């Protein structure tokens, strides 16, 4: 075997003590990286509990050595609805976007994933590949027409007849949460189908066969067998989609823009960051409130998240 060519190596010819130090280097390097990775977040976390003048005058690291109390003022300001810099309403808006945009694609994608995995029909293969290849499409490519659709409907003008036919009426969705979650639903589907298909197609074949012998049709099999068995992967996708929709800035900014009553948290804190200087001290608290729910979801359901990540990418 080719492996024998490694045999000409001696053990490291250095003393035992140095050797032990060297052995500890990887762990040391690892924790050094972890420290670097955490410092930015740590700094913001510390700052969010410091007053305006403290934040402006001295670095956050001085808070550990200086006297000077921690304060919850920043959090109080951003969470009080009456203050002009409140992000409380945007928090509700974020839920209004993220909850439907998480629940609805799950159902739709589960149907499709089941069909791609267990129903025979012509063109199944290429239709699946076509659907999943949309994963890589940058969503910028759909933004302008979608905004037009939400703000004016879709119309087809027949040039020879001098008549415009309405394909989709104008529902006046521009500037509403509905427009955002509808968009997220569509954009999330290719990934959802890919993820769920990977899982559902791996379910044991015998289950389906015996169910079919018992006279169950696809509808029954789906409700009674596939859905209950797929709970883990549904959870994984739900976490993904929730994080993705909660943290989205591009779609919300396009569809809602400056419509204050419908802005989600990402736009709200970006606006805080935008008016230079004046609200700098609220930014840290705002960013933490914005990140609170994703972090809770992430830490409580990390297992599912990692599983979903792996199922979604290692295969293939």
């Amino acid at each position: 075997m080719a492996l024998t060519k490694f045999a000409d190596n001696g053990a490291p010819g250095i003393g035992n003590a140095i050797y032990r130090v060297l052995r500890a280097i990887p762990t040391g390097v690892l924790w050094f990286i972890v420290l670097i990775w955490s410092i930015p977040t740590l700094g913001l976390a510390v700052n969010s509990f410091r007053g305006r003048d403290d934040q402006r005058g001295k670095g956050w690291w001085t808070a550990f050595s200086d006297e000077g109390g921690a304060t919850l003022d920043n959090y109080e300001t951003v969470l009080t609805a009456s203050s002009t810099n409140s992000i409380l309403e945007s928090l509700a808006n974020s839920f209004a976007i993220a909850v439907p945009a998480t629940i609805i694609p799950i159902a739709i994608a589960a149907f499709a994933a089941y069909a791609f995995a267990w129903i025979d029909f012509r063109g199944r293969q290429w239709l699946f590949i076509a659907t999943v290849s949309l994963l890589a499409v940058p969503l910028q490519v759909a933004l302008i027409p979608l905004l037009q659709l939400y703000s004016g409907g879709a119309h087809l003008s027949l040039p020879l007849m001098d008549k415009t036919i309405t394909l989709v009426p104008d529902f006046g969705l521009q500037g509403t949460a509905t427009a955002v979650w509808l968009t997220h639903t569509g954009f999330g589907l290719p990934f959802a189908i890919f993820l769920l298909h990977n899982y559902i197609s791996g379910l044991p074949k015998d289950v389906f066969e015996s169910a079919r012998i018992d006279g169950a049709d696809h509808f029954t099999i789906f409700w009674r067998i596939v859905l209950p068995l797929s709970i883990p992967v549904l959870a994984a996708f739900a976490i993904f989609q929730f994080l993705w929709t909660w943290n989205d800035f591009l779609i919300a900014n396009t569809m809602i823009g400056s419509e204050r009553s419908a802005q989600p948290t990402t736009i709200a804190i970006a606006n805080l960051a935008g008016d230079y200087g004046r609200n700098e001290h609220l930014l840290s608290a705002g960013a933490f409130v914005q990140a609170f729910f994703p972090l809770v979801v992430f830490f409580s359901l990390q297992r599912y998240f990692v599983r979903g990540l792996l199922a979604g990418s290692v295969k293939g």
Partner: protein
Amino acid sequence: MKALKKLAVVAAVVVLIVAIQSTDQSELLFDKIVSTLISVAIAVGASAGLWVGVNLLFEQATKNWPRFQALSFGLVGGVFFFALDGNRLLRTLGPQPDVAEIVGDATNVSTSLTMALFLGLVGLLVGRAVALYRSSPALVAPIAAGFAALGVLLGQTRTEEVAGEFFTRILWWPVIGGAIAAAFGALLGGQGDLRSRRAIGVVGGLVLGVLTGFMLFRAYRPVFSVVDLAVPTLTGVVAFGFPAMVRGRSPVPSVLLGAAIGWAIGAFGFSDVDPLGPLGWQVVATTVPFVLVGLWASWRPLADSTRRTNVSAQARSWIFLGPALTFIAATLVIPAIRTMYLSLFDARSEEWVGFANYGRIFGNDLNEESFDFGRIGALDGSLLFQLGVPLLLLGAIVGVLLGRRQGNFFETTGVSATPIAIGFVLVAFAIFSTIRGTVINNLWWVFTVTGASTCVGLAIAVLADRSRSEKIAKAFIFLPMAISFVGASIIWRAVYQARDARKPQTGVLNALWVGLGRLSTGSGLPTFLVTIGLIFTLLSILAFLLGAIARRSLQGVAPIATIGALLAWFTYRFIGPGVGGVRTGPTGELIPDPALFVQDSPFNNVWLMIILIWIQTGFAMVILSAAIKAVPAEFLEAARVDGATDAQIFWRITLPQIYPTIGVVVTTTIVVVMKVFDIVKVITNGQFDTQVLANQMFSEAFSFRDKGVGSALAIVLFLSVLPVMFYNIRQMQKAQA
């Protein structure tokens, strides 16, 4: 641990509730939450109802064919008439507002009854679905009754809204059209005799056609010539009949359908419109296609049980796929095609400009240049370039020399690969920082972020593998994945903050930078200690290198030598001219000189990229870590038995095993980086030479309202990820095969 997690979730909910309760505008928020829940319930309920309804409909195909025909014909007829009516092509039916006023109370009652009937039918459907799911048929009646009661309530309380708009304008035409179509569908479904079937089809078409003809608004009354009518009709006949003939089927049904469509297009698309024209022509124009469609529907003999089963089975796949494909088509595919179309028009989508928008992008005719080759002459003056090229040459020479000793042309070992890799990165950075422009910036992002996050992610995965603190360490690295790009930008903006030189720095990086400057120019004890430490480290590295050369073992020489060279340079700067954020003022005194990380072009781009690296490394780490753990243990055992070192096992066994996974990580990251938007938008909004394609697209399309250029930029973005898409498809085909 589990209890702790549950506690965290509960705490989050409690905090939210308290936060909402404690505010003075809790009512407003409450409304918002309730309306969200209602909209979710409506969306889920309506789609579930629709979906179950269609499932039940196709179940009828095997159970009761006439009923299936009646329902499906009725549905198609209803939708068709809804579309006609919705486009204001048909005259208004139902009680007119003035009539409603005269009848008064009676309308109230009739509205309630109609509404109850309508909602009762919906309830029947929902009830069936629920009953099917819970297998208890007793539920149907109460659910239907509940819906009917809701209808009565709506009719009583909202008489005007319901009767005014909903019934007079929207409901009647679909109901009438649907009912007629359903009646003929039911007749057709029960009739086996071919001649009678065709008679039913013709009569059904006649009824609907004449009805439509008489009720069509005058404004669309066609005056057609033979040519206007014959050309589209014949085209339809050929277009539909020819494929059927090629496939060896009877062309008659296809020809009928083609003729109907062609006729309709000819009569209403190509003819002149004359509101004072004869009514007869209008009736003929609508009746002919209806009759043709009726014949088409009745042409084939009554379906036998095989075909009924086929219809049901075929429909199932489309029912399951339908919602997803509809959504994807509506939000991705059709808009993407329309974007391509819009990219060929001017800013207001009015005038056709061909490829002029693309010409402007690639001809540097936008607010920011796409490619700026103007400074390419300065490339050889770049320090990075001057360092990178010798390193590349060094690596190449070493590789060839080593290769000659082994009998190969080129030997890839640490000694030759390290200088080449570093040299390559340096030269790439030199090129990217000299040639400027939006597209170049995007490429720089892709190169740096993809490379760095994959390498760092891999390094962390290897370092953490099998170490005691693996889980915690990985969670920390992974955490940025849960933070939004906007949040990450805010976090890093604080890190990069630069303040007036006279004040203390509040950004970590500048505090370190200025502190380093003070240290290197100072003369106190700390400076002395650091100098001693640096020199000691350098000496020990030198000792290691000399020892390695003496032992003639090149193990680990290259990385250590690289670190040593960097450290030597740093030590020289530290002792000699000084390093860090301090400069000498006019009178010889030292002034802090903070770095403007965000403003100083071109390397401000790199500082922005670091934010994305910070986020993406966690992703790379998780996936690569799983791949490393999946490498078969026997391989590693065998190598260890043969005496391979850890480094050799990694480079020669683990790494080749995880190549496919690295491919996945790289392609996924490329797609993410190519679309980078939020970071640039929040931190610089494209100022200071940091523009990228996605942000430029956003500002062109939505700030400057130039839909043409915005669309063209989106298409450029799309085309640039196309290779990745093809690679993914290839991988998927391989996996499926």
